[in-house]
């Protein structure tokens, strides 16, 4: 294991985050605060409680997941797309580094950044609403699992993308709608029967539901199913990454 290489890539990725601290950390915090103002105050004044939880507190896990998903994808996809775009990927490909080490370093860097961000949003939220975390271990487990899974997904997008447009396409057209329709701001039990059934095909529902359970002990779907779906998605991403590296897809061809 070339741990020095893993560390070098990881440190470089983290340095990039701190260099662009405004874009990496400050802007998601501001946008989350705006969600609180708009959804928490405006809608919260009409919906007082969901499942016995105040609306402001109810949306916190969903908001964290929203940022976690989008940031994990954008961090990881950009991290591997940028060297491809400027050509500096040659160095990575010519180095004595295994595929596993490349993935650990890039995905680890992207996941770390989004986890830090998630925790910052959590701290920001605690300024607006009183929060309880019933299952802190599972809260962290969902946070890490989701960050890693979607960083892997972002890594795949970064390798697949041939242009900045393609890089933005999947997060914009698929992830953002899925997150908004995944119960970030409402309980899916509030939806009509038909829409509730359709919603169950949205993988993000399971992430948000499980994550919310770790806070308040209440969930739309069972925690076991949430965890299972997250792990399934993780395995799918791992399989795709393994295939990419075995074939050299868009890297060594």
């Amino acid at each position, binding site marked *: 294991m*070339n741990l*020095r*290489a893993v*560390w*070098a*890539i990881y*440190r*470089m990725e983290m*340095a*990039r985050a701190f*260099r662009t601290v405004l874009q990496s950390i400050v802007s998601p915090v501001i946008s989350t605060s705006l969600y609180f103002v708009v959804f928490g105050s405006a809608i919260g004044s009409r919906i007082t409680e969901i499942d016995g939880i105040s609306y402001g507190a109810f949306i916190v896990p969903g908001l964290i997941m929203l940022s976690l998903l989008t940031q994990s994808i954008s961090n990881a996809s950009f991290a591997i797309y*940028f*060297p491809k775009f*400027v*050509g*500096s990927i*040659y*160095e*990575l*490909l*010519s*180095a*004595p*580094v*295994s595929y596993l080490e490349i993935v650990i370093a890039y995905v680890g860097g992207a996941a770390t950044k989004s986890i830090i961000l998630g925790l910052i949003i959590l701290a920001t939220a605690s300024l607006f609403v009183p929060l309880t975390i019933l299952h802190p271990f599972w809260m962290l487990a969902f946070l890490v699992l989701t960050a890693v899974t979607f960083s892997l997904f972002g890594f795949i997008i970064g390798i697949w993308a041939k242009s900045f447009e393609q890089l933005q396409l999947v997060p914009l057209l698929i992830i953002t709608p899925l997150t908004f329709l995944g119960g970030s701001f409402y309980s899916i039990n509030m939806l009509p029967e038909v829409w509730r059934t359709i919603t169950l095909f949205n993988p993000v529902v399971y992430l948000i539901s499980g994550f919310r359970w770790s806070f308040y002990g209440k969930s739309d779907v069972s925690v076991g199913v949430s965890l299972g779906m997250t792990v399934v998605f993780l395995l799918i991403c791992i399989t795709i990454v393994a295939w990419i590296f075995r074939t*050299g897809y868009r890297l*060594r*061809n």
Partner: protein
Amino acid sequence: MPSILSISGVSKTYATGFTALKEVNLDIQRGEIFALLGPNGAGKTTLISIVCGIVNRSSGTVTVDGHDINKDYRAARGLIGLVPQELTIDAFESVWATVNYSRGLFGKPANHGFVEKVLRDLSLWDKKDAKAITLSGGMKRRLMIAKALSHEPRILFLDEPTAGVDVELRQDMWAMVRRLREDGVTIILTTHYIEEAEAMADRVGVINRGEIILVENKAELMRKLGRKRLVLELRNPLTAIPEALSRYALELSPDGGQLTYTYDNQAERPGVASLMRDLEAGGIQFRDIDTQNSSLEEIFVNLVRREL
């Protein structure tokens, strides 16, 4: 001398169907400077990319100091430093950070003293805190070299290192190449500047349309190069070469108006002076005289053209 790099039967066909390399065989000797010449699109960069692990080959084997580049890629790649043709650097990193990053990527422990020496040798030390984006083209090229040298490679690939580089940097670079060679580093360079190959290389290889068409010692090539032609425009055409001049192996043009003498200009006695005396003694007058040098470039162009 055992070869440090052995390329055997390597072919590459891209997904588009374009065949960039056809059954390339090449052995690079330990510690030599090898110049790979070829026109644009000949396959130089593809060949280097395959050896360095950037592009997958379609067939064939490559070993670096006995290590297969696939089965034992860590050992193989660890020995190689690559300076690619394009200036491709993460523009927002500082010189110091990016060179240390390269060293870490190749699994070497941090050694700030060594990195400092590399930067000083390349006149980059004053710029160590500057971001790559603020550097001039020449400085960026130096930075690319510093990154390639950061992990103390035993083989250095320089892909068109002097393309678009000013005279000062070019001279610095060749001085550095000589120093590296003295330290036992094997250097493989591709270049369009044939005079550089002449000045630097121990051996020269010519690649065209994905095939190696010539690999020769430079000394041997210089012998071929050393041939010079002396062309005399005669005042009065001759019908035949006079008997007195038969020892010079002259050529007479069909119209009898031109005498050509081909000789080895590196020989101790090229025979030009005695030819002049014999011409005068024989009463053969000429109105003009011209000498032509056959250069490596000429050989190269002829070789490549013959292939077309």
